[in-house]
């Protein structure tokens, strides 16, 4: 248990500029706390997130990766998140298939108005990653030291 308490996961959050990044801003201006382990990368749209980015994050030592975009139907670019949804579904399925723990990568749709949802999502994601522990199955040993 004590080990778990000390474990500070590295978490990368890709947020689309129009909804989720703004949702994160709202969480901030509403002073809704979530762990500092989460670091946000701004992308124009969830469809900009290449599976290579996600694998790269794991390679370099991330313990969890979350992709946030506009709710389906609300994409600033009309259809971007629909493509992202298929891509990520397949990618996550493959990660599961090769034995990576379920839940290390996640997609959530967070609108610009959902500051609360953003904070809740990050809280639950961080706690999930803490439960899963350190990412040992994906990751390059060279980056571990």
């Amino acid at each position, binding site marked *: 248990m004590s080990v778990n308490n000390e474990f500070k996961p590295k978490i990368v959050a890709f947020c689309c500029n129009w909804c989720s990044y703004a949702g994160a801003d709202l969480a901030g201006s509403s002073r809704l706390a979530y762990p500092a382990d989460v670091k946000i990368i701004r992308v124009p749209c969830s469809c900009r997130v290449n599976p290579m980015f996600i694998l790269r994050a794991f390679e370099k030592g991330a313990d969890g990766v979350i992709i946030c975009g506009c709710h389906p139907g609300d994409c600033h670019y009309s259809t971007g998140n629909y493509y992202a949804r298929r891509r990520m579904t397949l990618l996550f399925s493959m990660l599961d298939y090769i034995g990576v723990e379920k839940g290390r990568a996640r997609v959530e749709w967070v609108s610009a108005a959902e500051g609360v949802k953003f904070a809740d999502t990050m809280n639950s994601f961080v706690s999930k990653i803490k439960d899963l522990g350190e990412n040992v199955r994906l990751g390059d040993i*060279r*980056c571990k*030291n």
Partner: protein
Amino acid sequence: MLKIAKKDLASLFALIKESGELYLPVKVAEQTNFAAYEDGAEFDLDTLKSVKSPKDVFFPQSETLYTCKNEGKTIKITPEELVDQPFVVFGMKACDVGGIEVLDRVFLSDPVDSFYAARRAHGTIVALACHEPEESCFCKVFGIDAAEPVADVATWMIGDELYWKALTEKGEALTEKVSSLLTDADEQVVENEKTAIRAIIEKLPYSDLSLEGWNGDAVAEKFDSKLWNELYKPCLACGTCTFVCPTCQCYDIKDYNTGSSVQRYRCWDSCMYSDFTMMAHGNNRTSQMQRFRQRFMHKLVYFPANNDGTYSCVGCGRCVDKCPASLNIVKVIKAFGEKGE
């Protein structure tokens, strides 16, 4: 001549491992390759040829050369340490040993490759004669005798026993270490085995392959041959032939960013790849034909030209077995032979 029962090999390997790493053919997921022996690993001395040649014991597919780390605004460079512990490679075939000799010519000549030299200095090679050579073998063509490998120790697997003969000082030292497990053996059994092996070798389909015309002087005529234009066509430009080959020695040097440091490493490269020897201006060889030609010209012409006539092919036949497009060095040699070029 000494011997040990096949069933006691596990004890032999355990004993060898007490004083350093032991590399030998290990079966993982149906495939046999040389690997460091660990307890419980399934060693496999029955498969004639490991998929990859054992050259990576001395010349790993990838090895770090040094590490750079930012310390404030300065960079600290830490060279990788050289191998300084003895180790043993068990089960190399005569051709594989021939491959190491080719690598020696490259890496031990001036300037000496310290990483390779360190491994060669600390490694003891126990070679194993080829009990049942296969149709893709053609080591005979390069003057290699599969029946009598020349290494630190030569061994023969005959029936349920492994026959053991030290040939060098290193070999003697190793034999000394494991002498408790070895018993004296009848030299004649081994002689019979050699004769049997050589008889099979005579019957191998490639044994009469002629290398006529392939030598260091043949640069211009071979290079300009029109045959290359036909031969290369099925080539997929993969690196299979290169990576299974016991003599291919080309490597690339690259940097890996670990986040906190940069590791400069080298890794095998393949002249079949389009980015092989890529330079700022582009590439010397712009077509697959040229890259394909390079591989065979190097093995059969350029290398002998620079190494007293030694070919950089040992006839192990791995490329014959593994090429996805069924191309190989034999087909190249034969094609030139047929056309009389």
